[in-house]
C-alpha cells in the first residue's frame, strides 16, 4: 500500500515536472521559429544579396585604349592584334614536359622558365599564366601546329598598343606600359578598371590623357564556387573603347623634322601663328616607344639611356637653351616700344664694347661700322644690341619678353615635363641669387646669353606672336571642341581682339603699343633672311609662296677664352661638348604669314650654317601642306 502510494506520488512528480518542461519547449521552439522568420522573411533581401555576392564574380577584361590620330586622321597611337601564349595549370598533364617543349619551340630563356614556375606556385590552378605576351606570327603558327602535344596551353589573340610611326611621336605621345602600385593608387579610374596585363600611359599625352584614353572594361560575370573556381558564365557586358584624341600635328612634317635632325641632338617646333596649333614638335634623337610595350630588354634600355645625345629628354619642352641672337627681335621690339630707339637710331660697331673695364665682343671681330636697327638685325650685330639693351634696361626688356611668352610654360597643362625657362630681371636676381644686378648682365641678356633660358617651343611661340602682328595666342596640340578657325583668328586679331575658346569671350590679346613697331621688327627679320649680308641669306627661298623671314642664333655653351677667340677654330676642331648650339627662328610665307618655327641643333655650331638650312628644307613642305590642312578643318572633334 505504501509502496503503491509512493509510486503514485512519484508519477505525479514526474508528470508535473514534465508539464513545466513541455511549456519551456514550446517557448524555445517558438523562439527558433521567430529567429527563422527574422532571417528568412525580414532580412531575406540582405542575405539574398550576400548570397549573390558569394556566388557571382565579375571578371574584367582589359579595356581598349582610344586611338590618337594626327590632324588628318592618321592613327599615330593605335591598337594591334597580338598573339599571346597562356598556360592554364589545372589543364596541364605534365608541367615539366610542357615547359621543355615550349622552351624548344619558343627559345625561352632559363630565367623565363624560372619565372613561369614561380608564377605557377603563386596563382590559382585555373588562373592562366602568360608565357609570352607577344608571339610572332610564325611562333603562333608553330604553337598551333603542336597544340595536340601541348595540353593546357592556350594561344590567345588580344589587343595591344601600337605606335605605327615608331620614334616619330615618342616625345609627344609617350608610351604605355604596366602600371606600378603607386600609379594604380593615384588614379581612381585606373584603380577601378585595372586588370592584370593592362597597360597605362607612362609619359607624354598617353599619361596626361589617361582618363580619356583608357576605355571601359568588358565584364564577364561568372558563377563561382567557394574556392573561386568558375562554374558557368552568366553574362557578358561589352566594353567601350576610350575616346579618340585628335592632335593638331601633321605626321608628314613631323616625320621630315625627324629626318632633318637625323643623328643630331636638337629640336624642331612648327606652329600655326593664328590658331596656336602645333604642327610639329620633334625632339631628336628619339626612340621607339613600341619597345616599352612588353617590357624593354636591359640591353635596349641601356642603349637608349647611355646615348650621349640623350634621347630620353624631350628637348622641345624640357631643353633649356640660351636663345642667343634669336632674342634680338624681342630686344629690338622692346626698345622700340619703350621709345628708346627709332629706326634712324645708329650705333657704331667696332667689334667690341668696353664697359667698366670689361670687354664685350661682337661676333664680327672687325666690327660692322655704323649700323641701324635693320642692319643690326640683318647681320646680327651684337654691339648694337649691347647698346640698346643698356639703354633699355633689363626690367623693361623682361616685361616685353614675358609678354611674348618667355619664362612661362607654353603647354603647361599637357606635359608635366615642360620647363618654364627663365627671363631674368633685377628683382629675380636679388631674390634668387641675393646679389644686385650688374649692367654687364643687361648687355649679354640683350644678345640672349647669361641667365636667360628658354625652351625651343617658347622661341617658336615668340616668333609666331611677332609673325601674327603681335597678338597673344594659346598654343595647343589637341584639337578641342571649339577650335579657332584661321579666319576668325586673323579677323579678331586685326580688330585687336581675340576670341578665347576657354572663356568664350573676346579678349584683348594685343602685345604691342604701336602696331608699327611689330612691322619694323618683321621687316628687320625679313632682311636678315632675304637681303645680302643677312645671316641666313644663303637659306632664303625667293619664290614668294615660300619666302620666309627669320633670325639666326648661336648660343655659347661656355665662355670663350681670349686664346680661343684668337685661334678662331673650325667647328670640327672644337670638342663636341664645347661647340655652340645652333638656333633659328622663322615664320612664313612673308606675305600673309601662317607658320612659325624654331630649330635648335645642339652643339651644331652657328645658326646660319646649321639651323637655317634646315628651315629652308622644311618651309617648302610646310607651305605645301597648308592647302591640305585647310581642307581638313571640319574634321570631327572631341571634347577634352
Amino acid at each position, binding site marked *: 500500500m505504501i509502496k503503491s502510494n509512493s509510486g503514485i506520488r512519484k508519477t505525479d512528480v514526474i508528470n508535473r515536472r514534465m508539464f513545466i518542461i513541455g511549456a519551456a519547449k514550446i517557448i524555445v521552439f517558438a523562439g527558433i521559429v521567430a529567429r*527563422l522568420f527574422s532571417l528568412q522573411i525580414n532580412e531575406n533581401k540582405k542575405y539574398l544579396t550576400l548570397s549573390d555576392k558569394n556566388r557571382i564574380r565579375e571578371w574584367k577584361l582589359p579595356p581598349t585604349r582610344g586611338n590618337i590620330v594626327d590632324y588628318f586622321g592618321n592613327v599615330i597611337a593605335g591598337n594591334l592584334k597580338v598573339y599571346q601564349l597562356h598556360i592554364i595549370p589545372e589543364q596541364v598533364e605534365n608541367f615539366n614536359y610542357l615547359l621543355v617543349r615550349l622552351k624548344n619551340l619558343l627559345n625561352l630563356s632559363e630565367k623565363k622558365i624560372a619565372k613561369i614556375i614561380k608564377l605557377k606556385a603563386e596563382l590559382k590552378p585555373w588562373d592562366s599564366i602568360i608565357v609570352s605576351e607577344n608571339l610572332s606570327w610564325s611562333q603562333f603558327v608553330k604553337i598551333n601546329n603542336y597544340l595536340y602535344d601541348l595540353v593546357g596551353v592556350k594561344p590567345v589573340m588580344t589587343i595591344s598598343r601600337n605606335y605605327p610611326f615608331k620614334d616619330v611621336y615618342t616625345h609627344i605621345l609617350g608610351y604605355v606600359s604596366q602600371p606600378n602600385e603607386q600609379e594604380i593608387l593615384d588614379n581612381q579610374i585606373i584603380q577601378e578598371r585595372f586588370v592584370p596585363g593592362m597597360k597605362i600611359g607612362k609619359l607624354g599625352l598617353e599619361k596626361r590623357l589617361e582618363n580619356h584614353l583608357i576605355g571601359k572594361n568588358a565584364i564577364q560575370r561568372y558563377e*563561382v564556387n567557394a574556392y573561386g573556381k568558375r562554374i558557368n558564365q552568366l553574362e557578358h557586358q561589352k566594353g567601350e573603347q576610350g575616346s579618340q584624341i585628335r592632335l593638331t600635328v601633321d605626321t608628314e612634317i613631323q616625320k621630315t623634322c625627324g629626318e632633318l635632325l637625323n643623328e643630331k641632338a636638337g629640336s624642331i617646333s612648327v606652329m600655326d601663328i593664328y590658331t596656336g596649333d602645333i604642327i610639329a614638335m620633334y625632339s631628336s634623337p628619339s626612340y621607339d616607344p613600341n619597345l616599352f610595350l612588353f617590357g624593354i630588354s636591359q640591353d635596349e634600355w641601356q642603349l637608349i639611356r647611355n646615348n650621349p645625345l640623350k634621347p630620353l629628354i624631350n628637348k622641345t619642352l624640357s631643353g633649356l637653351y640660351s636663345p642667343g641672337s634669336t632674342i634680338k627681335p624681342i630686344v629690338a621690339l622692346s626698345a622700340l616700344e619703350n621709345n628708346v630707339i627709332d629706326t634712324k637710331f645708329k650705333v657704331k660697331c667696332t667689334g667690341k664694347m668696353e664697359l667698366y673695364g670689361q670687354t664685350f665682343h661682337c661676333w664680327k671681330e672687325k666690327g660692322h661700322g655704323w649700323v641701324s636697327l635693320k642692319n643690326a638685325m640683318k647681320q646680327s650685330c651684337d654691339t648694337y644690341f649691347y647698346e640698346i639693351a643698356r639703354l633699355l634696361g633689363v626690367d623693361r626688356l623682361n616685361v616685353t619678353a614675358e609678354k611674348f611668352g618667355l619664362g612661362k610654360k607654353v603647354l603647361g597643362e599637357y606635359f608635366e615635363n615642360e620647363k618654364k625657362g627663365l627671363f631674368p630681371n633685377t628683382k629675380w636676381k636679388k631674390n634668387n641669387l641675393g646679389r644686385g644686378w650688374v649692367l654687364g648682365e643687361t648687355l649679354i641678356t640683350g644678345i640672349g646669353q647669361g641667365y636667360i633660358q628658354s625652351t625651343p617651343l617658347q622661341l617658336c611661340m615668340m616668333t609666331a606672336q611677332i609673325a601674327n602682328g603681335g597678338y597673344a595666342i594659346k598654343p595647343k596640340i589637341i584639337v578641342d571642341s571649339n577650335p579657332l578657325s584661321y579666319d576668325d583668328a586673323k579677323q579678331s586679331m586685326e580688330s585687336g581682339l581675340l576670341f578665347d575658346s576657354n572663356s568664350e569671350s573676346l579678349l584683348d590679346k594685343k602685345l604691342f603699343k604701336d602696331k608699327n613697331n611689330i612691322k619694323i621688327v618683321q621687316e628687320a627679320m625679313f632682311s636678315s633672311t632675304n637681303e645680302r649680308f643677312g645671316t641666313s641669306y644663303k637659306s632664303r627661298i625667293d619664290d614668294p609662296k615660300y619666302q620666309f623671314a627669320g633670325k639666326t642664333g648661336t648660343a655659347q655653351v661656355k665662355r670663350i677664352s681670349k686664346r680661343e677667340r684668337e685661334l678662331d677654330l673650325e667647328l670640327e676642331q672644337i670638342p663636341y661638348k664645347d661647340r655652340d648650339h645652333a638656333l633659328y627662328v622663322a615664320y612664313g610665307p612673308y606675305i600673309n604669314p601662317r607658320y612659325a618655327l624654331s630649330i635648335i641643333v645642339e652643339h651644331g655650331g652657328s645658326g646660319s650654317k646649321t639651323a637655317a638650312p634646315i628651315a629652308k628644307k622644311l618651309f617648302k613642305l610646310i607651305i605645301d601642306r597648308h592647302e591640305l590642312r585647310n581642307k581638313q578643318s571640319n574634321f570631327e572633334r572631341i571634347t577634352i
Partner: protein
Amino acid sequence: MFQQNRLNNEITLFQKIKNLDYILLISVIFLSAISVFVMYSTDGGEILFHTKNHFLKLTVFFPLMIFVAFFNIKFWHNFSYIIYFLVIVLLIYVSFFGIKASGSQRWMDVYFFVLQPSELMKIAIIMCLAKYYHRLKIENVNSFTSITIVLSIILIPTIFVISQPDLGTSILIALSGLIILWLGGVKIKYFIYSFITFLISLPFIISFLKPYQKLRILTFLDPDRDPLGAGYQIIQSKIAIGSGGLDGKGFLKGTQSYLDFLPEKHTDFIFTLFSEEFGFIGSVGLLIIYSIIIFRIIRIGSISRSNFARLFCFGYAFAIFIYIVVNLSMVLGLLPIVGSPLPIMSYGGSSMLATMIGFGIVLSAKINHKQIIA
C-alpha cells in the same frame, strides 16, 4: 489479480505490430525520406557516397528500431545498467585505442562501420538514470547518497567524452542526464543553486577550454571578427538560411551548398541546406514533424504504467528536443558552434543508431504501456 496475470502474459507478434505507434512511425519514416532527399542534394544532385550510405544506414537501422521495439520494456529496464556499463567500457576503449580524426579520438572501427560510443551514451545515460529513479523511493530522491550516485552516473561518461575532446556531445549527455534528475524529483532549489554556481565558475571553466573552443565562443559573440576564418561557418550558414526566404531556392538549387560555401553540410549544417532550398515554410514544416515526434514520445510516456518507461520517454523526448534546439540554434547563430548533429537528418551512423534505438525503446514502451515493472 486476474488482470495482472493477463498483463504478464506474453503479447503475440500480431498484437505487437498492432500496438506500434503509427503516428510516430510515420513521422520517422517521413523524416527519413526527407533526409535522403536532402543528402541527395548535398551530393550535388547525384546519388553519391553520402546519399548511398545514408540510405543504407536507414535501411539497416529502421528494422533495428522495430526489432528493439519488440523486446518488452521490462527487458530494457533489466538491462539498463549493463548497457550503461558496456558503453562506459567502449568509451574507455576509444580513449585508448580509438581512431583519431581531426584532433579528437572518439571513434572505433567495428568492421562494417565506424562507431562513436559517445552517441550511444546519450541513450544509455537516460536508460540508466530512468531505471535508478524508477527503483528509488521518492523519500530518498534528495538524499545525499542518491544525489552523489546520480551525479557520478552523469559525470563519469561526461568526463570521458570531454577528454576525447568532444564538448558538444558531452554537454548533450550531461543535459540528458540532468533532465532525468529533474523529472525524478530532485529539489528545484538544487537546480537553481547549481545553476548559480555554474554561472559563477563560468570564467574558471572557460580557462580550461581548448583554444579552438574559446575561439568558437568568441566567434559566436562576434562572427564578423574573422569572417574568413572562425566566423566563416556561421556567416555562410546565416547567408544560406536568410537567402532561402519564404519558400526557398528550390530543391537542388541552393547555391550556397551547391557552390561549396557551406561547410559541414552533410552533418551539423544539414538544416542550413534544407532551409536554403525549402525556405521558411519548409523549415517550419520540419519543426512540426519534429514536434509531432516529441509530442508522441511524451504521450507514450504519459500512458505508460511504469515509471521507468515514463521517465525514459520524457527524458528521451527532452533529449531529442535538446538535440534539435542545440543544432538549430547553432546554425541560426544563436549559440556557439558545438558539433551536434540533427537527429535522423544529419549524416552519421552512430547518431542515427542511437536515435533509432531510442525510438525502438519508446515503441517498446508503447507496445507494453500497461506493463508494470516491479
